[in-house]
């Protein structure tokens, strides 16, 4: 037996994933009675000729267990590598920083508004990822969120967290008109 095959036969991330899928299937079976509402009335005693709301979830739970068992069996012969383990420190740091920036961005967007929140996010992220032209970075950070904000809120008449620029942008500009026309679904 070659060392490669020995490596392949050992317990690997696919084995762990398979066990998780089986556990998910079993958990699904267990929660079905508690997580699916019962009908208030039995429609005409439909019984056998009516698909119960629990039937499809039970099938899917069964599929998880069966496929999970198959996957478990197959996993010992798979030679795939766990790419998460291959990530170096730089990659892990960058992904974590980006996730943190995303979380902060949600908060900033809700409390400072879309334009200010986005401007801070773009400037921070672009600087972290290597942009050293700060003037360009600042310009892009302010201009792009403003354009996106105007596009979505004025002509397309949707909503983005407004503060602090909403008051400053005119409600009606001639340049909105062609785009407003697009969002008017009654034109057809």
């Amino acid at each position, binding site marked *: 037996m070659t060392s490669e095959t020995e490596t392949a036969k050992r317990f690997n991330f696919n084995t762990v994933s398979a066990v998780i899928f089986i556990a998910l299937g079993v958990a699904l079976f267990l929660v079905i009675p508690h997580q699916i509402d019962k009908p208030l009335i039995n429609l005409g005693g439909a019984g056998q000729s009516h698909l119960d709301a629990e039937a*499809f979830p039970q099938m899917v739970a069964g599929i998880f267990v069966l496929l999970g068992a198959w996957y478990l069996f197959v996993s010992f012969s798979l030679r795939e590598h766990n790419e998460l383990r291959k990530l170096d420190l730089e990659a892990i740091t*960058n*992904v974590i920083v980006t996730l943190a920036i995303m979380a902060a961005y949600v908060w900033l967007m809700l409390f400072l508004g879309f334009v200010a929140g986005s401007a801070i*996010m773009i400037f921070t992220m672009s600087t972290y990822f290597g942009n050293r032209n700060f003037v360009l970075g600042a310009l892009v950070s302010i201009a792009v969120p403003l354009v996106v904000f105007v596009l979505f809120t004025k002509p397309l008449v949707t909503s983005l967290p407004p503060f602090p620029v909403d008051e400053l942008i005119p409600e009606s500009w001639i340049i909105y008109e062609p785009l407003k026309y697009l969002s008017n679904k009654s034109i057809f």
Partner: protein
Amino acid sequence: MFEAFLAGFSILFNPETVFMTFLLMAAGLFLGMFVGALPGFTTLMALAILLPISFFIHPLLGIPFLLGVYKGGIYGGSIPAILVSMPGTGAAVATTFDGPALTKKGQARKALEIALFASVTGDLTSDIVTIALIGPIAAVALLMGPPELCAVLFMSLIVIAGTSSGVFVKGLLMLAVGLFLGMIGQDPIGALSRFSFGIAEIEAGIPLLPMLIGLFALPEIFVSIEKKASQIIQAKDLKVSGARLTWAEFRSCGRTIARSTGIGTLIGVIPGVGQVVAAFMGYAAAKSASKTPEKFGTGELEGVAAAEAANNAVNGPTLVPLLTLGIPGDNLTVILVGAFIAHGLRPGPQLMEQQGPLVFAILIAMVLANILFIFIGYLCIPMFAKVVTVRKSLLLPLTLIFAFAGTWVFRSNPYDLAILVIFGAFGYMARKLHFNVTPLAMGFILGPPMEYAFGQTVTLAQGAIFNYIVFERPIAAVFVAATPIITYLIWRRSVRLRQQFGTTD
């Protein structure tokens, strides 16, 4: 259907709107080519983040806009593939076999032009075939009742899940995850609450848009930021140099383009195969049919034409199973399903019956988009060549704000942003563990209609489902019988490939 086709013309050429339709298609093509030309930025990501824009405009404007992004993105990937041997999209990998060699010979302009003309020819021809096919297939699809629909959906899901992932069972498991996520909310028959776990925000189900953007756009961003952006490509490397393509050279590639268009069109109709396979098959077929196959790989115009005609010829025909049966053939068409559903147009047999003229108007617009395609592509080739050097450090956060803004405008609900990030992180981990999320999205979208059709079948069968299917619904019985055979064949292929290459991922 012919009346619907004619009505489609009058809807499309409504003088009040026709200009805007074409303007938006041009914008879509431009954006698609721009993103496609950026190595590391895929057409899928562009479609996912631009999807919300299409929600707030009429489908005749929004869907052609997305189709423009789709077409432009597939072509745009060939630009860095030819100039710097970095395929902008997976579909352009086969273009790197001959494109960079042509650039080294000082024939970059010829290579880019043959890529454009082959792409447009493949796309245009396959779009016309799409319109010709869609009517008859939709007419047959209309004869299908719930048992047939359920059987077709089930078979398609298995095919897509089985072919999308290197390891067969992993594709099926992702499909099961999608089916489970699709069950969250209300059951499609009795509207009973399921798996909401007391969270009010998901009482009506997981919203499709944040999930799609999260699954398909954010993982691309995470992969791109693994290494900090570095300007490895110098602007001087991107000179679009050399003589222009001559008519004689284009004509000499005619047979290759026609063959690749045929291959791409056929592949497009089959769910789960896609542009990458089409490009490789088109290239291989051109090489084996050539009198000088040894020249392939050393800078042969036919090599570029073969790959590009084949990958673009896939675009239109992927809409055939989507619009007639409601089956998205690949991850790009999953995004298009999102656009259709957002407009209250659920792809499937009923769509052609209820909205035939509108669907044909969109398809005719798609055919005419090729005229814009050739103009924008031809005029902007030098500019798109420079796009390769645009700083990733600035583009990545901009992509992020589009993803977040697009998610927010859907319901103005902060929970949607959480769903976006959760599915983004899930999609990234899935990719790193060799799971393909396309079957998940398919299961999520097609699970509820399949359950509904299954429920109707159970009711129609009055408890004797086996007898009902076998004796009263022979077409459904054929699909049911064919499913295990097809499943076995896909599984055998998957095992064979795994034995050959260790893994097909």
